[in-house]
């Protein structure tokens, strides 16, 4: 099965799993995301959205993290094949 084109993390829905493809953000946010485990190939799972629709809760590297849409738009993920 061929892999889908990478898409922004913000397009995923609760319950979806994916692999980190690339962090597009620059500067401070980029460094922070890398440190928190958003490296190529890292597996993540979208847990839920906050009651008001933003931010998003996800699991990466075995811990739970929340990201605003602003940040999750800057992370490209590819769905597992």
């Amino acid at each position, binding site marked *: 099965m061929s892999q889908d084109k990478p898409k922004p993390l913000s397009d995923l829905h609760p319950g979806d799993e994916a692999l980190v493809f690339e*962090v597009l*953000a620059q*500067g*401070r*946010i*980029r*460094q*922070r*995301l*890398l*440190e*928190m*485990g958003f*490296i*190529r190939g*890292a597996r993540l799972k979208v847990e*839920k*959205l*906050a*009651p*008001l*629709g*933003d*931010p998003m*809760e996800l699991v990466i*590297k*075995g*811990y*739970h*993290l*929340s*990201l*605003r849409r*602003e*940040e999750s738009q800057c992370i490209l993920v590819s769905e597992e094949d």
Partner: protein
Amino acid sequence: MPITLALAGNPNCGKTTIFNALTGSRQHVGNWAGVTVERRSGFFESAGIQVEVVDLPGTYSLSAQSEDERIAAGFLADPTVEVIVNVLDASNLERNLYLTTQLLELRRPMVFALNMMDDAEKNGLKLDPTALAALLGGPVVPTVGNREEGIQALREAILKLACAGPEPLAAGGTVNYGPDLEQELGKIVREIHRDEELARTCPPRWLALQLLENGFKAKSLVERSHARQAVTTQVQSSLAFLEPHLGADGATLVAERRYGFAHGLVEEVQKRSATRRTDITARLDAVLTNRWLGIPIFIAIMVAVYSLTFVVGKIPQDWIAGGFNLLHTWAGERLPPGELTSLLVDGIIPGVGAVVVFVPIIMLLMGCVAFLEDTGYMARAAFIMDRLMHLMGLHGKSFIPLIMGTGCNVPAVQATRTIEARDDRFITILVAPLMSCSARLQIYIVIAGTFFRPVQAALAILAMHFLGFALAMAVGKLLRLTLFRGANAPFVMELPPYRLPVLKSTAIHMWEKGSVFLTRAGTTILGGATLVWFLSHYPGISNRSWSEELHRQEAAVRTLNLPPLEEASRLDDLALAHQSRVVNTSLAADIGKTLQPALAPILDPDHSRAEAWKDSIALTAGFVAKEIVVSTMAVIHHTQVGDRDGNPDVSGLQSALRQRSGLSPLTALAFMVFTLIYTPCLGTIGMILKETRSFIWTSFSVVYGLGLAWLMAWLTVQGGHALGFA
């Protein structure tokens, strides 16, 4: 000479419980130089050796991007640090080891506390500390901080390492960045060694890694070196080779290798047993951050915290206020009348009272905040409220300080400590005073009750609270777009597992917050209260002929042989007349008259009020505390508030205001708007000064408050006129 030990670790790894367990009650809380990040240090003694433990801010890395990281990195680079204890959350080892890879590069003696071993076991993880110690190159001690397990072993490991000297143990585990990166790192390190001074200030390999990561701090270190040309050229050529070859930029490559190391380590030392318990955190989150239940539960928790703080907290507050009142009366009756007595009785005693009265609510609110923080709910609260707060240019964690501001602004400003990013914290500190606190409510009740019909009055009071919140939103957004335009701190927030808080830690925390408030903010408040006493009593209080006149009149009343009740009320009237005379001729009155033209457009638009200058005295008093505005108005308008038993009764003041003050419903509303917005009290100023540690931001808070208050009150008057109200 005590040994200095630094505790480093991720947020939520249980570092503070380890710190408390190591040092017991022998701790000191201050601030790191120049910033408002808490610096906690303490001592323990073992085998006759004193060890100073410094608790670093919890960080995910040492890349010096945030204030916390700069402090941690800066302190770890300090040569006086002899041992580093890296606290690791055993139940979340991989992410915790990322920081460890950076700490290892510092080449310092290091002990690893494998904390929360019980959580790891409950999660079905089996860890092998011996294997981990071999891979990390330093002693690993399993601990359970909140039950003080493994603490003695940790102390022993620390002392053993400290006594062995740095040589044999510094050569610990090394992260291997792979052949390509290692080769380029070697080249950069060689260039760094051209400047031996530079190589001594910072381990060369550590510096080389930061340069590959494009670290700002490392670049500025190199900028100052005479070898900058050689180093920078080498870094550029290394990146030019690595990036296309390995298909990512330097920062990504370094982070990938670090996580690779961490992952490999976890694979080696951790076994996941087949049985995995059902995750309590997942089950709690299914309810607490549920799409439908999340917000109602959050509101219920806020109501509980609010009631505990301001309803339960009011009981000890009333005792304190009552005690100071007794002291005030007792001293007033016993001491000979005069200026010094007045300073003590009307200046210092109420001033100290005004400080101490905040302590119960500060301790209670800080206790609640610490409880929410330690259980892990605070991060969920931020998760739930972030969308709304982000619209105002704020952070999810700003919500709790703002809501608590409706009870009292002083602890609200202090509660902003939970917000990590400096910009978010400062904006919250600056807008929190716009939340209408309970002390302002008294003023609204008197003013609205005087000039409006009951239903209108209730609406006006409600409108004040909404106006405060709306202004906080608008000002927050405006500050974010102007003065705090810098890169928005990323909202990358961990949602840690729920944990039972350690009550001892909460108690220590509450005690610290209360005592720090008394010593730091307390002095500002007391100083301000004394200044206002001086302004509102001089020169009248030193006027001999007035006080002699009072004594003559009092003596005359006593000779009349009136029934005791009537005599007492006549004496009170005389004393009040004297007080009014002193206040109305005081420096404060002079200032009031001088300021009057500035306030005229909002409080006296038609220039028809003879007594408009009295408002400025009341508003000046409101600078000290909104609680004393009503009583000050009573004195300047020469009426009594409260009957002889001290029951509040403002009808006398209300009729005086209606008959003599000349305020119209419209200007009364403007007065309320002004009261809402300008500086809430000296307590808040003291707290803002303590929390921002900046005279500039504290003055900014006062000045913009006054400016905005004037503007909004003026708009109220103009709008009212336009709509046809007088």
